[in-house]
């Protein structure tokens, strides 16, 4: 090294970064794509890029306590004889028994019930623990139809026809053999220990025209009592929302790409679908174009973490939000308490996503009875209820500051955007301007 021969430090490729290199080596060594749980980990434009415009002189804020800010919402007001009345606009998303332990499902039911909201079954059917501890339970109707039967259909409070989810719009499910215990195998009519694949399309209908007839059948079976939700992954939200409405849905559930899954290919999670932020306005536009905004309710999910996210989703036009990943964290997923055990699995608290392997130290995404026992469903349920209530209070705080006596009176005009991307996706002005990309029709 000298003035004549200067040192060039080693330079790593931005394209072939360390993570990419490790993935290539892993694929070469194992011959299988990376499967994991959770939603996208890449950074995408999100609610963090939006801010609320609180009231001051041109608008007046509300005080707390006596000056009420209503948080209730009714889902399924269009056709169902028994719509679902929720105290808070935050529901628990569908997660299967199989992916989660029985205790975890019970905890979700307990927490949701304490907070006055609903929880949802998943791919794998309805368990007694879950039904018993959930005051309001949404029963998912999935392509696999695992555990599907008319008795559970009738003891559900609503039916959610799952067409897709944000982590994998267009994809099916995958539950690896490690988690197919005797009970899971029996509920799914499968041999124990095999890798269970779930279909990506429904076995007996395809497209909106068939869906309309499928919805008719479900309504006839349940005597037009239950609200029918249609859940789609965020990819073409304008058309999918419009078609769900045309097919006769009471509620549209729209899941952005931050929405989690129990187990899917990493390449799918990271490269298919749209950020939640980008999904809401087109879906609301579809509802407005059909004159159905607030008549067919829109539930948005995928990356909802705080009362601010709830308030922002509602301001953009959603009627409610749904949480999955955040609910799991609230009951103990990825808790640093288990750091030593995460280390043994080659990961760290906060990064653990091998939910499909069934070795969850927190006892949530597992069918191992020893691990599952670690989760006390009563305590975990209480934690979830606390979290739901905090989020609600946070959303109310923001709404009151914007002068609203109902959370649902938040409007897009109460928001500004920090980035051009968020301004374009949410169609709200860049902070300090009255403009967003696309405004003016180009």
């Amino acid at each position, binding site marked *: 090294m000298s003035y004549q021969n200067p040192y060039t430090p080693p330079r790593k490729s931005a394209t072939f970064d360390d993570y990419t290199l490790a993935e290539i080596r892993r694929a070469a060594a194992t011959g299988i794509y990376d499967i994991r749980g959770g939603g996208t980990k890449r950074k995408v434009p999100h609610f963090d890029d939006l801010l609320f415009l609180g009231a001051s002189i041109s608008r*007046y804020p509300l005080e707390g306590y006596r000056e009420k800010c209503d948080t209730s919402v009714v889902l399924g007001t269009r056709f169902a004889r028994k719509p679902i009345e929720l105290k808070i606009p935050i529901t628990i998303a569908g997660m299967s028994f199989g992916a989660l332990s029985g205790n975890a499902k019970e905890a979700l039911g307990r927490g949701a019930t304490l907070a006055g909201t609903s929880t949802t079954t998943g791919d794998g059917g309805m368990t007694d623990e879950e039904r018993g501890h959930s005051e309001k339970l949404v029963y998912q109707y999935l392509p696999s139809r695992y555990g599907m039967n008319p008795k559970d259909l009738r003891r559900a409070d609503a039916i959610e026809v799952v067409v897709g989810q944000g982590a994998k719009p267009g994809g099916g499910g995958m539950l690896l053999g490690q988690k197919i215990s005797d009970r899971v195998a029996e509920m799914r009519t499968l041999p124990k220990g095999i890798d269970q694949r779930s279909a990506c399309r429904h076995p007996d209908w395809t497209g909106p025209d068939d869906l309309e007839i499928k919805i008719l059948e479900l309504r006839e079976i349940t005597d037009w009592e239950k609200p029918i939700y249609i859940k789609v992954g965020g990819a073409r939200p304008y058309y999918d929302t419009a078609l769900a409405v045309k097919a006769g849905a009471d509620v549209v559930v729209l899941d952005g790409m931050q929405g989690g899954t129990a187990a899917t290919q990493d390449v799918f999670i990271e490269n298919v679908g749209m950020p939640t932020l980008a999904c809401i306005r087109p879906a609301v536009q579809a509802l407005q174009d059909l004159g159905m905004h607030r008549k067919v309710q829109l539930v948005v999910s995928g990356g909802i973490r705080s009362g601010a996210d709830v308030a922002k989703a509602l301001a953009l036009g959603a009627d409610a939000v749904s949480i999955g990943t955040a609910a799991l964290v609230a009951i103990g997923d990825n808790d640093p308490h288990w750091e030593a055990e995460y280390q043994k699995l080659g990961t760290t608290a906060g990064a653990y996503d091998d939910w499909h392997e069934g070795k969850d130290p927190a006892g949530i995404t597992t069918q191992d009875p020893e691990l599952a026992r670690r989760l006390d469903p009563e305590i975990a349920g209480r934690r979830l209820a606390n979290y739901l209530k905090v989020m609600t209070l946070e959303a109310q705080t923001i709404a009151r500051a914007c002068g*609203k*006596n109902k959370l649902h009176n938040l409007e897009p005009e109460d928001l500004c955007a920090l980035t051009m991307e968020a301004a374009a996706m949410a169609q709200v002005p860049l902070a300090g301007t009255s403009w967003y990309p696309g405004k003016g029709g180009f």
Partner: protein
Amino acid sequence: MCGIVGLFLKDKSLEPQLGALLSDMLITMTDRGPDSAGIAIYGGAPAGKAKITVQSAEPEQEFSGLEADLAKAGIPASVTLKSTHAVIEIDEGKLGEIRAVLAEIRPDIRIMGSGESVEIYKETGLPKDVVSRFDVRAMGGTHGIGHTRMATESAVTTLGAHPFSTGPDQCLVHNGSLSNHNNLRRELKREGMSFETDNDSEVAAAYLTAEMAKGKDLGKALESALDDLDGFFTFVVGTKSGFGVLRDPIACKPAVMAETDQYVAFGSEYRALVGLPGIENARIWEPEPATVYFWDHEKAA
């Protein structure tokens, strides 16, 4: 940020003085809003006739020959000029037709309000100037409302001035700030209502019109407003024969009312009421939050 007044006469002998009384009430409220002012007077029309109040930025040019042009278009009318405004009296049956005709023959004319009874005058500027420009003091009538505006989030224009009229003989003045008017405007537009401004108060007026179009009377429409309108408001509204007051459930925006055997009066402040006859012996009160107050000549009769 605004001052509002209203006067509903029970004693017919006061009717010739309506314009003068209301003018003084409104001028007293000038401090609360210097941007624009407006007044609606319900004076009745000859049986079978209707009135339409129009405004123009170039009244001399636009209003000249208007009577003749309307007659040519098949609408016999008598046009009375008042500064930037004109009141067109036509057969009641032509009320639906005249808007389209005006849009055709005088596209730049703006319609302030219409109906069997109401005349609406509003302009940018102070109440005293607006009142004298339209010679409001000389007008008689059964009831009327007035407004002086301090603009908040929408433009200071003639159309942005109150009262807002969105239906025949219906108008509204508002003090406060609504917090859900954008969503509500979108809904009302889908239901077929049209809007001239970005003003929150226009949304409130349109909302009441839409509710009354569903068959509600003004009182019932105001009750629904308590559920559907968010934010802060004191409304004074007029219909052909009625007069209503509503404050939001929090009721921060000021409101004072006075009632005697001769009238019911409303002011943003007590000062607005002090010139009324017999005010010393009137029952004076502040309207309760979330309570609909409603008087109607036809129902009283």
